C-alpha cells in the first residue's frame, strides 16, 4: 500500500481539520422542513381526496401546526447564518443554479398555501381575539363555498409539500465537493423521511387525543390545534390512527428502500464516494447509522407497526416516536458525515 501523508498550514475555523460549517441548526431545519413538507403533502392529499365536508376536516390543524414548525425551522436556519441581517438579500434575486435560492422561494410560496389551508380549518375557540376568529370563520366559510378554490389550495399544499421535501435533500445533493451527499437519491429520501415522520407525528397526536390526556375544552390556540389535529368528526380516532400507521409503514418501507439505493449508488461509484460511504457503514457514524437510524428508526418501528396493524399489540406512541427520532438522526448524521467527507 502506498504511504501518504498530507499536512497543511491552513487552520481556518469551521474548515479545518475537517469541514464543520453546519452544527445543529441545519439538521434541525432540514428535519422540521421535511416534517412540514410531509404535513403539507398529507393534508393536501386528504383535502383533495375527501368527498364529504366531514371527511375534508379529517386533518384540520395540520396546516396550522405546519406554520408553527416551519417557522421554528426557519428560525434555526436564521440562527445558522453568520451574516443574518443580510438575509433579505435572498429575495432580491433568483439564482437558478442555487438550491438554496430555490428553497428560499419555495418557502415563501409554501407559507401562503399553508395559511390558506389553515384558514380552511379555523379553531373552534381561542382564548382571546374572538372577534378576529369570527372574521376568520367567515372567510373560511367563503372559501368552502368555492370548491375550485379549495381544490386549488389542496393542490398547492400537495405540490408545495413535495417540492419542499425534495428540496431539503437536493440542497445537500448538489454539493459536489462532499462525496457523501453526491447522490440524486437524497431528494426522494428526505421527502419520504419527511412523510413518514409527519405520519408518525399525526399518529402521536391521535393517540394523545384518544387517551384524553388533554382537556379538549382547553382553548389555547396552539394546543387546541395540536390535539384537534386528527379529530375526524364522525370517525373513530383509533381508525384514523390506524390509517396513519398504515401510511407510516408504507413511507418507512420506501424510505428503507431509498436508503438501500443511496448506499448501493455510492458503493457503485467512485473511490472517494466509497470512502465517504464508509463513514456511515463502518466509520465513526456507523453505530448511529446502523443502530439508531436503520435499527430503531426504521426496522423496529416497522415491526411494531405491523404487529399493531395485525392486532397483536396495542397501539402505542413508541413506534411513532422512534420514527421521528430516526428521521432527525438521519439528517443529523448525513449533514455531519457529509461535511467530513471530502475529495482529498
Amino acid at each position, binding site marked *: 500500500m502506498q504511504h501518504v501523508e498530507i499536512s497543511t498550514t491552513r487552520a481556518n475555523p469551521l474548515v479545518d481539520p475537517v469541514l464543520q460549517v453546519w452544527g445543529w441548526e441545519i439538521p434541525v431545519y432540514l428535519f422540521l422542513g421535511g416534517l412540514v413538507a410531509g404535513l403539507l403533502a398529507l393534508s393536501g392529499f386528504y383535502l383533495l381526496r375527501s368527498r364529504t365536508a366531514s371527511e375534508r376536516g379529517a386533518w384540520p390543524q395540520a396546516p396550522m401546526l405546519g406554520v408553527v414548525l416551519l417557522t421554528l425551522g426557519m428560525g434555526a436556519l436564521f440562527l445558522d447564518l453568520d451574516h443574518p441581517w443580510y438575509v433579505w438579500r435572498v429575495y432580491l434575486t433568483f439564482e437558478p443554479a442555487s438550491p438554496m435560492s430555490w428553497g428560499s422561494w419555495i418557502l415563501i410560496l409554501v407559507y401562503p398555501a399553508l395559511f390558506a389551508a389553515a384558514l380552511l380549518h379555523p379553531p373552534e375557540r381561542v382564548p382571546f381575539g374572538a372577534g378576529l376568529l369570527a372574521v376568520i370563520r367567515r372567510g373560511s366559510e367563503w372559501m368552502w363555498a368555492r370548491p375550485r378554490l379549495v381544490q386549488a389550495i389542496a393542490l398547492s399544499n400537495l405540490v408545495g409539500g413535495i417540492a419542499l421535501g425534495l428540496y431539503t435533500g437536493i440542497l445537500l445533493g448538489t454539493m459536489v465537493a462532499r462525496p457523501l451527499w453526491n447522490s440524486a437519491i437524497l431528494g426522494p429520501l428526505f421527502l419520504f423521511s419527511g412523510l413518514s415522520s409527519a405520519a408518525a407525528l399525526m399518529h402521536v397526536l391521535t393517540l394523545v387525543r384518544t387517551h384524553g390526556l388533554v382537556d379538549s375544552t382547553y382553548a389555547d390556540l396552539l394546543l387546541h390545534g395540536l390535539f384537534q389535529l386528527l379529530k375526524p368528526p364522525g370517525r373513530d380516532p383509533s381508525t384514523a390512527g390506524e390509517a396513519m400507521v398504515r401510511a407510516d409503514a408504507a413511507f418507512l418501507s420506501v424510505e428503507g428502500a431509498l436508503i438501500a439505493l443511496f448506499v448501493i449508488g455510492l458503493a457503485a461509484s467512485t473511490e472517494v464516494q466509497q470512502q465517504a460511504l464508509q463513514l456511515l457503514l463502518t466509520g465513526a457514524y456507523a*453505530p448511529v447509522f446502523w*443502530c439508531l437510524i436503520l*435499527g*430503531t428508526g426504521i426496522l*423496529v418501528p416497522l*415491526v*411494531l407497526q405491523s*404487529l399493531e396493524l395485525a*392486532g*397483536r*399489540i*396495542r397501539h*402505542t406512541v*413508541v413506534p411513532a416516536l422512534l420514527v421521528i427520532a430516526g428521521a432527525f438522526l438521519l439528517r443529523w448524521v448525513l449533514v455531519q458525515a457529509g461535511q467530513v467527507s471530502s475529495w482529498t
Partner: protein
Amino acid sequence: MQGSPRPYANPYLAGFGLGLVLLAAFVLMGRGLGASAAFSALAAVIVEWISPGHAAANPFFSRYLGPGGGLEEWLVWEVAGVFVGGLVSGLLGNRVRPAVERGPRVGVPVRLVLAFLGGLFMGVGAKIAGGCTSGQALTGGALLNVGSWVTMICIFGGAYALAWLLRKEWT
C-alpha cells in the same frame, strides 16, 4: 391488542436466552455484560459538558473520558440496546405502562424516595465492587472469577440481611 399484560416467560428459558447473549458477548468481544460503568461514563460526560477542566482533573471522571470513553464507552451503547430491547419486549408483551411499582403497604412518594436511595447505594456499591449485578455477578460468575462470586454472595447476603427490616416496603 388492547388488554392485560401477558405473563412472563419461563425463568429457565429466559435465563438460557440471557446466557446465550452473555456467551455471544464473550465470543464476540472477549468481555461480558455490564451496566454500571455506563452510568459512570454518562456522569463523566455530563461533568465534562459543564466543566471540562474539572472533569479532566478528576481521576474518576477522566478515566471515562479518554479515547474509547465518554459516549464511545462500550457499555453506553450496550445499555442503550438494553433500553430498546426491553422496550420492544415490553411492547410485544403488552407490559409497557406508566406506573410506580410498589409494595402494598407503601405510598408512591415513599417508594420513589426509596428507589432513589437504592440507586445511590447501588451506584456506590458498584464502583467499589468493580461492577454491579450484571458486570460482576452474571459475567464474572460465568467466568468463575473469584471476586465475582464473592460479590454475588455478598449481594444476596446484604439483601437477605436487610429483607426482614424492609418487609413493609415489599410485602
